[in-house]
């Protein structure tokens, strides 16, 4: 990027460093607040020993839990201990399996990451051409058609779309498996289901962004130089759109993680969302806490990074 190498470089690089530190500080602050909320979560509606002992907990088992989790200590001590443990990513053992809660969540992370990542790729591969086609053919039939598809994509819930996919491709056509994770073919249906909403949103974004860009002077210049339409679109117009896509990636990540709970449940995909859901159904609070914390950690780290890196890509934002 030639712009970064302009005069004033030393000044802006120190700005980048303080920017990074400032973001790190904010990240820590947010994670601390989330941990605090998680600490109070199980104390919200009563004695945590009741929760932890489960529905058929006897007074003895509750007493044992109080001992084991140090629930008889003053709340300040408990809080300090909890935060201290959080800094070590330690949320205690699962009530259900007695394994470390964090480990249970982390071992599910790759499956969720795989699903989210492939949904992201599929969405980009479909939405970018779709949005561009709509923008180039603004107002024509194909544009209208794409906008109807987009409207459907934004309104049909993921789980309904997922059920439809299962009904068509797994139950009737028997082309693809509808649940499990034994090979690449198991990834196809959940990926499509998860990417639907994202495709709709991204197509809209690419279209409106392209429409704006195509009216800019430099596009007209490129055209008047006699460059081919494809080159103008891919080299000149798309650069701008790409920047906007990056900005919303952080938020899309959160959308994908949220959606993955439903999709993983629907397709029995052994990911983090499914684990959190099981933990909720079992009242397994250490695992819930670990799960929510990891989701927060991922989402906010990625958001900070995207925000930070964005400034390298767009010099206009420096010093703001």
């Amino acid at each position, binding site marked *: 990027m030639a712009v970064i190498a302009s005069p004033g470089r030393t000044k802006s690089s120190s700005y980048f460093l303080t920017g990074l530190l400032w973001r790190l500080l904010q990240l820590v602050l947010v994670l601390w607040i989330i941990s605090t909320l998680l600490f109070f979560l199980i104390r919200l509606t009563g004695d945590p020993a009741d929760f932890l002992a489960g529905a058929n907990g006897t007074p003895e088992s509750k007493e044992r839990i109080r001992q084991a989790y140090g629930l008889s200590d003053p709340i300040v001590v408990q809080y300090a201990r909890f935060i201290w443990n959080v800094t070590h990513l330690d949320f205690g053992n699962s009530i259900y399996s007695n394994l470390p809660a964090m480990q249970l969540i982390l071992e599910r992370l790759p499956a969720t990451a795989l699903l989210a990542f492939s949904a992201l790729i599929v969405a980009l591969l479909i939405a970018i051409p779709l949005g561009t086609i709509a923008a180039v053919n603004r107002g024509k039939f194909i544009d209208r058609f794409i906008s109807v598809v987009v409207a459907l994509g934004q309104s049909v819930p993921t789980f309904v779309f997922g059920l439809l996919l299962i009904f068509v491709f797994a139950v009737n056509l028997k082309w693809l498996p509808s649940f499990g994770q034994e090979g690449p073919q198991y990834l196809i249906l959940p990926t499509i289901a998860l990417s639907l909403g994202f495709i709709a949103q991204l197509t809209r974004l690419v279209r409106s962004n392209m429409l704006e860009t195509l009216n800019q002077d430099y596009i007209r210049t490129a055209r008047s130089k006699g460059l081919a339409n494809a080159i103008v679109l891919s080299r000149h117009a798309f650069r701008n759109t790409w920047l906007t896509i990056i900005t919303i990636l952080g938020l899309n990540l959160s959308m994908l993680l949220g959606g993955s709970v439903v999709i993983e449940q629907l397709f029995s995909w052994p990911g983090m969302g499914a684990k959190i859901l099981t933990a909720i159904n079992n009242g397994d609070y250490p695992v819930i806490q670990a799960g929510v914390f990891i989701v927060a950690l991922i989402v906010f780290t990625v958001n900070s990074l995207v925000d930070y890196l964005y400034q390298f890509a*767009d010099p206009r934002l420096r010093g703001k």
Partner: protein
Amino acid sequence: MTEKIETPVIEGIKADAASQTARMLASPSPAPEEAFEPKRRRRLKLDPLVVISMLILAVIVISALLADFIVPIKTEGLSFLTKLKPPFWMEKSDPRFLLGTDSAGHDILTYLIHGARTSLIVGLLAPTISAIIGVGLGMLAGFRGRLTDTIIMRAVDVQISFPFLILAIVLVAVLKPTMFSLIVVLSIGGWAFFARITRGEVRAIRQRDYIHAAEAVGVPGLQIALRHVLPNIFASIIVLWTFFIGIIILAEAAISFLGLGLPQPAISWGGMLTDGRNYLDNAWWIPFWPGLIISLVVISINTIGDWLRDVLDPTAQR
């Protein structure tokens, strides 16, 4: 209206992704052909799609209101004989059950109509509460000093970035699902979006002369906010509120679908879908109807939302 920095375009909640950076990029120089167009007068032009959407919603709202009169829930006469009856156009259908019956022999049409109540109550109340809280905090952020602004807007960023569905299912499970807790939890999903929009608009409006004039005359802050600012941002709030009805109905359905919604006797569309999941191969109509109706409702709401945005908010770009 060049001083309007934050374009209140909500491309679905999802696209409000646009952080300020994106917005800065997105704040456009208007397209040339639009720039030279004379100011059009906005009329209430009804698109046929909008009319259809309104009709669909009206039918659903009215039947939900009258549910107990038109299709009271019958428990007597339930037996294995009425189980898994297909909709009326198929063989072996039973004229008493127009849309068929579920695995326990309940009439699906009856359940759909009663299920609409949950969706509509939650879908109307939660966005309203979100709007009240969000507009209040957004005004505070827009009017008060830098510190208040920073704190509130940071909280908004955090709330918006965190996957709301995960937060909602955890909270609903901890609080135990009741209509009240469901509404409270789902209200948390929207406040941040209302706050962000309100704050942006307040920032733009408070620079105007009539606000300065009101301040100079000594009109109290609260009165300025309610009398002079609120009417100006009302259009954007209504548009966002409309979209949020759809978003919340989807969220409620997702929560019920995951089995964390209102517990049994309560009927919800999401819950019907969950039951129907296991009958995809031999009784597809069980998940089909609730899936269709949820999609229809949300499509209708989004269509009306789009229309309202065009009508109420001439600055919004498409």
